[in-house]
């Protein structure tokens, strides 16, 4: 996903870009979605977010003094349920110990101020809502002060506030809770002055998560934990190849199981499947296991990983659509063979596998529906449910449920899980139905980080620096044929394919990046840090190789090659160098240090790792991270995101870190075949250092992910002399 700055730039360019896109799907479903980016004037069936956010939609001061702050985004680990209330509470001078955070339902007022739809993505939660939540806090405070000033017949500027109390000039004081009804009658100020950073009481402080205790005692409810009176459980049997259809169904045995309520074919976004509805999950799953289905797979492309590699590598030998072209197109002609590197890379499909399996609960009453969804894309999911049920979005009351991870998997443009759930709920009018995707459904159900092939030709110039760089990337588009295409596809190139390469921070005079976006019968999706997952790997391993060839220290080499304007990345690199030098220069025998640096979503990250080889696997003993994210709103949360986010990034290096296809079928089934990192696979310690800054905050959800795998294989290269260009890393 693009960064805020790039999005704003595009919005300015496209004065009118209502995307009335529709994608006719094989199942006969029509996806029609319509964006109303607030930067654009608009008319249409969806209201844009308001220009002035009404504080009462975000802050509720209860008579008992508790302050309920509404969070306009999904909480799925990234910590916004704490960080956004911190911002508002700080400007409001609220007593933090009394703050309660709630996740907002789907509503126009909770749309992302920049994206214009309610969503989490592009590491935008803090970046896009920092100013919004500050202003909301400032306005709420101003209204409370105005009410107090009126009561005491003094001027507002004679009052001050602290910890949910207004103090007057003559030792008057009033608690916020006692002022709230009077304050609510005050007009919402159009403008308020906000604090200077030196006045922050919460912003910039290490504040623990508000949801910690409930997540440690089992009381936190996630979407999957929802229990409603009379609720039924549904599971769906999906076709073995994407787009397959039910030819014939024998459900006699399934229906004979006690507790099964119905078995029926349902249309899917592509093809069809069979839904089983029962009183309990175990019953539904058993019944599904007893279905006998003959599938119609005729005329359907059956993806096969080995054939795809052949095709992709062939494509990579010719330039694709141009994403970036600097300097002389023919510069390589002047480079001698001895000064050329040709490198080919392979990256497999990756599943997100969030810990909480996908689920959606819907109750359809004929004229209205109520939905409970752990959703990253509330606006789209609400519209999709409405569409299936013949309702307008506002007729679907949409509750945002806490999610057990997501990493992009709950931000699906076609809302396929919600469509399945709505299709099933339509048959059970008045009865809530919870659709559960089993782990097998999730691992085999598509919507993966696409597989990619890269081919890079480098011409080495004076002092071992890259003089010519020709880079071809092959991988499916994430957005072709969707409403996002108009914003994200430029010159026929999906930006998410090339991000992290075409906009590299390195200064390479003759630089050519192109891409092929082939069509393959595998649904694909953004996976935490999106294109940066593979682009950072290619860039940072090749830069390291060049540094080695030039006999230069890899940090010094990067420093020399960085563009002058890459100030954040330079600062991060310098800080990483400083903080890791002691251990890097004092490694035990059999250990090696690897480094990398990369900027993603406007956050710059530098990484050093201490790696040895145990049982033919990399053992990551230590990681030092330095980062520049502008103002760190909650340094504790930033530290957490990076400590764990690098662990998430290790998924790419796992021996079983790949989804593969044979004869159209996914070869993995569950965590036994697709194995993300466990505690022994992740770094043992991670120390995180933040470059001090008062610049506008940038996101920290995705930027930890890209840096770790190149740093680890750069260390491995020192230990084994081998360069690792094919993932997963089956053995070292």
């Amino acid at each position, binding site marked *: 996903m693009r960064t805020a700055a790039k999005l704003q730039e595009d919005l300015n360019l496209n004065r009118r870009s209502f995307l009335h896109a529709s994608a006719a799907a094989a199942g006969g479903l029509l996806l029609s979605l319509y964006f109303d980016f607030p930067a654009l004037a608009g008319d249409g069936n969806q209201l844009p977010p308001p220009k002035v956010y009404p504080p009462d939609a975000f802050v509720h001061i209860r008579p008992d003094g508790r302050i309920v702050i509404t969070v306009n985004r999904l909480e799925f*680990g*990234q*910590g916004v349920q704490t960080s956004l209330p911190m911002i508002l509470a700080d400007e409001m001078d609220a007593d933090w110990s009394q703050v309660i955070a709630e996740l907002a339902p789907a509503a126009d007022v909770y749309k992302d101020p920049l994206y214009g739809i309610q969503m989490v993505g592009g590491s935008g939660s803090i970046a896009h809502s920092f100013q919004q939540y500050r202003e909301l806090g400032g306005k709420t405070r101003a209204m409370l002060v105005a009410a107090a000033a009126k009561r005491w017949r003094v001027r507002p500027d004679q009052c001050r506030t602290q910890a949910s109390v207004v103090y007057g000039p003559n030792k008057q004081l009033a608690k916020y809770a006692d002022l709230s009804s009077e304050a609510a009658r005050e007009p919402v100020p159009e403008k308020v002055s906000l604090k200077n950073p030196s006045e922050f009481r919460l912003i910039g402080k290490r504040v*623990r*998560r508000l*949801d*910690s*205790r*409930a*997540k*440690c*005692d*089992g*009381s*936190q*409810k*996630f979407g*999957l*934990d929802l*229990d409603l009176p009379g609720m039924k459980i549904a599971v769906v049997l999906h076709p073995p190849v994407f787009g397959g259809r039910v030819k014939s169904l024998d459900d006699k045995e399934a229906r004979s199981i*006690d507790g099964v309520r119905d078995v029926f074919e349902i249309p899917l976004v592509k093809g069809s499947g069979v839904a089983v509805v029962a009183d*309990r*999950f*175990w019953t539904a799953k*058993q019944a599904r296991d007893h279905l006998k289905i003959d599938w119609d797979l005729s005329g359907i492309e059956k993806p096969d990983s080995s054939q795809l590699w052949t095709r992709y590598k062939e494509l990579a030998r010719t330039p694709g659509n141009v994403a970036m072209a600097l300097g002389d197109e023919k510069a390589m002609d002047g480079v001698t063979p001895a000064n050329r590197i040709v490198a080919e890379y392979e990256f497999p499909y990756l599943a997100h*596998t*969030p*810990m*909480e*399996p996908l689920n959606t609960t819907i109750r359809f009453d004929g004229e209205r529906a109520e939905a409970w969804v752990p959703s990253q894309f509330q606006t789209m999911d609400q519209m999709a449910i409405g569409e299936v049920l013949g309702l307008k979005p506002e007729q679907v009351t949409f509750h945002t449920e*806490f*999610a*057990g*991870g*997501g*990493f992009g998997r709950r931000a699906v443009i076609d809302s396929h899980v919600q469509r399945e759930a709505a299709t099933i709920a339509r048959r059970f009018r008045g009865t809530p139905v919870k659709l559960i995707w*089993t*782990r*097998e459904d999730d691992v085999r159900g598509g919507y993966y980080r696409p597989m990619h092939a890269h081919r890079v030709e480098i011409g080495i110039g004076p002092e071992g620096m890259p003089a010519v760089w020709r880079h071809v990337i092959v991988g499916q588009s994430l957005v072709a044929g969707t409403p996002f295409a108009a914003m994200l596809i430029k010159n026929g190139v999906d930006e998410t394919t090339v991000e992290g390469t075409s906009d590299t921070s390195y200064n390479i005079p003759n630089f050519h990046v192109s891409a092929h976006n082939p069509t393959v019968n595998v649904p694909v999706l953004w996976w935490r840090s999106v294109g940066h997952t593979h682009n950072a790997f290619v860039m940072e391993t090749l830069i390291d190789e060049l540094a080695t060839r030039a006999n230069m220290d890899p940090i010094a080499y990067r420093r020399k090659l960085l563009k002058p304007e890459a100030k954040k990345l330079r600062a991060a690199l310098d800080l990483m160098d400083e903080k890791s030098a002691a251990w890097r220069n004092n490694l035990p025998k059999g250990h090696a240090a690897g480094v990398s640096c990369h900027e993603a979503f406007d956050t710059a990250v530098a990484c050093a790792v201490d790696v040895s080889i145990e049982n033919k696997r990399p053992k990551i003993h230590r990681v030092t991270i330095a980062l520049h994210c502008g103002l760190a709103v909650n340094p*504790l949360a930033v530290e*957490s995101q990076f*400590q*764990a986010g*690098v*662990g*998430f990034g*290790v998924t790419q290096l796992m021996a079983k870190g790949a989804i593969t296809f044979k004869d159209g079928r996914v070869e993995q089934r*569950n*965590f*036994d075949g697709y194995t*993300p*990192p*466990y*505690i*022994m696979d*992740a*770094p*043992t*310690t*991670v120390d995180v250092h933040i470059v001090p800054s008062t610049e506008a905050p940038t996101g920290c959800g995705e930027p930890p992910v890209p840096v770790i795998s190149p740093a680890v294989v750069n260390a491995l290269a020192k230990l084994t002399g081998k360069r690792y260009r094919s993932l997963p890393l089956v053995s070292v």
Partner: protein
Amino acid sequence: MAIYQLNVNGQRKQVNVDPSTPLLWVLREELKMTGTKYGCGISACGACTVHVDGIATRSCVVPVSLIGDRSIVTIEAMAQDPVGRAVQEAWVDKDVVQCGYCQSGQIMSAVALLKATPKPTDTNIEESMGGNLCRCATYVRIREAIKSASQQLS
């Protein structure tokens, strides 16, 4: 269907379910104790970890028919257990959780570890916690919190 008398967190509970029903789903759907999580159904992720007679057990693969009169202890009872309480406090103090979905299982495994090995080494931690997947990968803080709880308890 069959009737089972279960000993859950020190209380007698009666359920009427298919004998093949895993303990996980009995806890979640019959007893409405949703602190124990479904993650994989094949004992590969540890989100469903409970203690059966004090032993950390993946409840997603244990049919209710095999439980008999063994005692079942879940995350919901950890606050009443001295080691459980120390582990929960360490988890909060170290701000371990992110999405939090796996943490019931992590805490149950950590409590079992500390009861058997009050002073665990990094290797002990990797061995005992090695079957508990955290997709957010909060492992660095899980290690810290286990060591911190161990110190608190000594």
